[in-house]
């Protein structure tokens, strides 16, 4: 029982009897013997209470937004509204089959169609497809649309995608998945893109550039107009990674900055629940020239007010479908209801208070002794601090601060991303945190900095108060224990 895994609680003959149909009267018929399963899978045989207790206890080992301040940079861990969750969870939404006749799902289709329009207005773009199931799929479709656009024009030599070295790893991975070469653009010391390097790398082979603004460094890219002009002049298109949209909602629209295509992360900006790693949703929005290539199905409204999914003949130049059905519909409903609650004024306030909270934290953390990576710049909705000085002086690392924060009751900020800034923490408070929570965080960070000076082992061996201490990751990679029944590792 020492591992507390559900399999160890399994007793042959136990069952959550209320959850299974009545036992079958006869043996299985109409299936050839050689195709039948001989031994059942070793799924747990437990009572319903055992299962409920097991997973409830597991949940208690987690930090969530509901329980802890969660300043994970570039993830926008804002409050996931319960009312929105309830609105989207109604049986009339969840019981619909994805291939049901359109006349039976007019409510769902109306929401999706309206959401397409809302997101187009929010981003300043001409059209939207809701189908990509996460940011990475959104990126893939965006890059694929850029490729389709050039190919449709007969411009087939453009096989390079320019990507800043500070970009999120999904960017180059998505570019390569579309058959592009990923060409890195260096970031200058002031945090802006190196324009000279960009100029050198632009040319007839440039299909486009993938950017985010504010950048992954938490800084607004001040030369965006110039960059857009340069790339367009070279014949390339601009892709916007929408991960940081929380910083500029209602202030600047990516379409107005010159971007041709972008994805949104609904699980970031639009407060859909993160669920321990997903599901997300990464709708794409495009300018006019890319409309024909949008991934399908989109939702159309006919002249008599009837909603339906688009079919092949409606979008013959589409890059195609990204999944069997129309994407993470339940998440899309949540995003729609979130927009309904916030309304036009509320959406603009998101960026205002996200930015206020970030700048306040930046100012106060500097006051207690931390080093901003870009001290001369405004924070956007997030900012970077670097622990490089502390590493030199006290031999502690950013990871040590992160782990010690867990003892103080805070989830750590993002560590070691972007790779550009050594020993960094990327901190994003979001707009839903109140001043007292931020002050508690600042106070904890001040105490941790003091511990670094007076008692560094406290940090190096942190966390001390969690169910486990730091894990041996080398051992995890070498053990390769991914399956309880194949584990050769002795249990304690």
């Amino acid at each position, binding site marked *: 029982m020492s591992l507390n895994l559900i399999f160890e609680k399994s007793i042959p003959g136990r069952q959550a009897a209320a959850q299974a149909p009545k036992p079958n009267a006869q043996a299985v018929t109409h299936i050839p013997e050689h195709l039948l399963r001989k031994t059942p899978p070793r799924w747990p045989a437990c009572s319903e209470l055992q299962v409920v207790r097991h997973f409830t206890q597991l949940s208690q080992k987690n930090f969530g937004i509901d329980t802890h301040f969660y300043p994970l940079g570039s993830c926008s861990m804002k409050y996931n509204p319960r009312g929105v969750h309830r609105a989207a969870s109604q049986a009339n939404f969840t019981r619909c089959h994805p291939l049901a*006749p359109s006349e039976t799902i007019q409510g769902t289709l109306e929401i999706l169609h309206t959401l397409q329009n809302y997101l187009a207005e929010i981003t300043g773009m001409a059209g939207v497809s809701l189908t990509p199931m996460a940011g990475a799929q959104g990126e893939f479709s965006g890059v694929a649309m850029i490729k389709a656009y050039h190919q449709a024009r007969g411009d087939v030599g453009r096989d390079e995608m320019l990507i800043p070295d500070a970009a999120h790893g999904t960017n180059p991975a998505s570019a390569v998945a579309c058959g592009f070469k990923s060409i890195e653009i260096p970031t200058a010391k002031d945090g802006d893109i190196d324009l000279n390097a960009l100029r050198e790398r632009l040319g007839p082979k440039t299909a486009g550039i993938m950017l985010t603004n504010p950048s992954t460094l938490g800084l607004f890219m001040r030369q965006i107009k110039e960059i857009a002009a340069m790339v367009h002049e070279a014949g390339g298109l601009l892709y916007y990674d929408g991960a940081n949209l929380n910083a500029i909602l209602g202030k600047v629209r990516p379409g107005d900055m010159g971007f041709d295509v972008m994805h949104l992360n609904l699980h970031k900006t639009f407060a859909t*629940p993160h669920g321990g790693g997903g599901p997300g949703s990464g709708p794409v929005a495009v300018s006019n020239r890319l409309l024909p290539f949008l991934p399908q199905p989109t939702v159309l409204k006919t002249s008599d007010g009837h909603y339906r999914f688009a079919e092949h003949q409606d979008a013959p130049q589409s890059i195609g479908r990204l999944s069997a059905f129309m994407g993470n519909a339940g998440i899309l409903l949540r995003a729609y209801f979130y927009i309904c609650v916030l309304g036009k004024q509320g959406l603009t306030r998101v960026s205002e208070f996200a930015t206020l909270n970030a700048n306040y934290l930046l100012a106060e953390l500097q006051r207690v002794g931390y080093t901003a990576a870009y001290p001369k710049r405004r924070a956007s909705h997030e900012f970077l601090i670097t622990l490089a000085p502390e590493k030199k002086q006290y031999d502690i690392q950013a990871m040590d601060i992160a782990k010690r924060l867990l003892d103080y009751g805070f989830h750590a900020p993002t560590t070691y991303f972007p790779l550009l800034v050594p020993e960094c923490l990327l901190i994003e408070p979001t707009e839903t945190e109140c001043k007292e929570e931020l002050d508690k965080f600042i106070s904890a960070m001040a105490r941790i900095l003091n511990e670094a000076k007076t008692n560094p082992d406290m940090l190096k061996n942190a966390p001390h108060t969690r169910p486990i201490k730091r894990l041996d990751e080398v051992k995890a990679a070498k053990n390769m224990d991914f399956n309880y029944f194949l584990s050769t590792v002795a249990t304690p």
Partner: protein
Amino acid sequence: MPYIPHTPEDTQSMLERIHQAPNIEALFDEINPDLRQKAFEHLPDGLNEMDLLQHAEALANKNKNTVCFIGAGSYEHHIPAAVWDIASRGEFLTSYTPYQAEASQGTLQLLYEFQTMIAELTGMDVANASMYDGATALAEAVLMAIRMNRTHKTRRVLVPETLHPLYRATLETILQHQDVTLLTLPMDTTQGITNLEALNAYEHDEITALIIAQPNFFGGLEPVDALSDWAHAHQAISIACVNPISLGLLKPPGNWGTHGVDIACGEGQPLGAPMASGGPYVGFFSTKKVHVRQMPGRLIGRTTDEDGKPGYTLTLQAREQHIRRAKATSNICTNQGLLTTTATIHMSLLGPEGLARVAQHCHENTHKLATELAKIPGVSLVFNAPFFHEVLLQLPISAQKIVRTLAQQGFAGGYLVEPHYPNLPNTLLVCATECRTDTEIRAFANALQHILAAENQTQTQTPLMETPS
């Protein structure tokens, strides 16, 4: 302001601590003024929660409640109440990717249990912590097969004609820039399963991968042993695309043929996810231990902490996009975490006995449905191979018209197959899971009978049986 807590006093005292910030607007002073937008115009005004819920209910009421006889990749099953109750706890619902292992042992242990259960279900060694859905999991399997067979000069993949057409379409989109050739393996038109003789054409060809769907799109049971062995004998990576509930009855892909398959994947929606118009669902993906470094997606491994206590952590991350970037095995980052949670709780509540019963009830109900419907004059089964929980019907007139009329009468009657298979006109793919009662099946059969009779006859219609509400 919904969800934003700041009072004017809060704002004032915070601004005072920030350099050169007389007001919030000043914080945006790095943005070029001519980039700034006007206020939003076509977005609505905000709502409070009470108004939101009324608005949501009104919209939900525009959806019609129908009795579901459609399968085709998404299936209605009973989801125990505890599944979403527990998964909706804030600690599960509002946590993020478990990068800080000490703050996420709940999620990490759960994922380890999920991996174990999926490996057991599919008869393979190791499973990852999920993909977006079954179709993208299949695409990732093909990409993995290409990596495994990287010495091949061509990238030719055999795809059965009996594979779900929407999965085929997804493969085409995701693989379009990878120089992959998808070759269709035709089906035997009487049996509705892959024609083994079609493999002879590739006897001396370099084939990178062979996809085997079980059950196939039409519910038919394929000759999986022969297909799996052929792949192995020809150095092609065998990829099983399977339904998880069917594996309560059917032999798992790890046991197909002499060696089992190399990769097993599929749609996990039947394990705890409502049909919900198509998502969020959850793809599962498993392989043999020797191939684990080529597997995409997140992977949770067991290890110990500094005190020797067992713990769980993300591992082999060097394969993933956040480290390997352009050379990653996949671009996937966010996956389907919450749905993995519900699937694990669902599988635990079913247990092996529950799974077997659900599978058998689905099998029996679909057979009952097929038998009832085939009694109707003009209706017959198209194929004669054994089938599981889905079957293709031949109708005497336009299936599209029938489906529309059935919808008016409260039935989601089936999936129209003809747009994808022009050589199968007037056919309808129907399914009956364990949720369908005998009453519903009889009502459906009656409705269909009357619709067909009305088409044929001009005499007064006999009254229809009441459909269940």
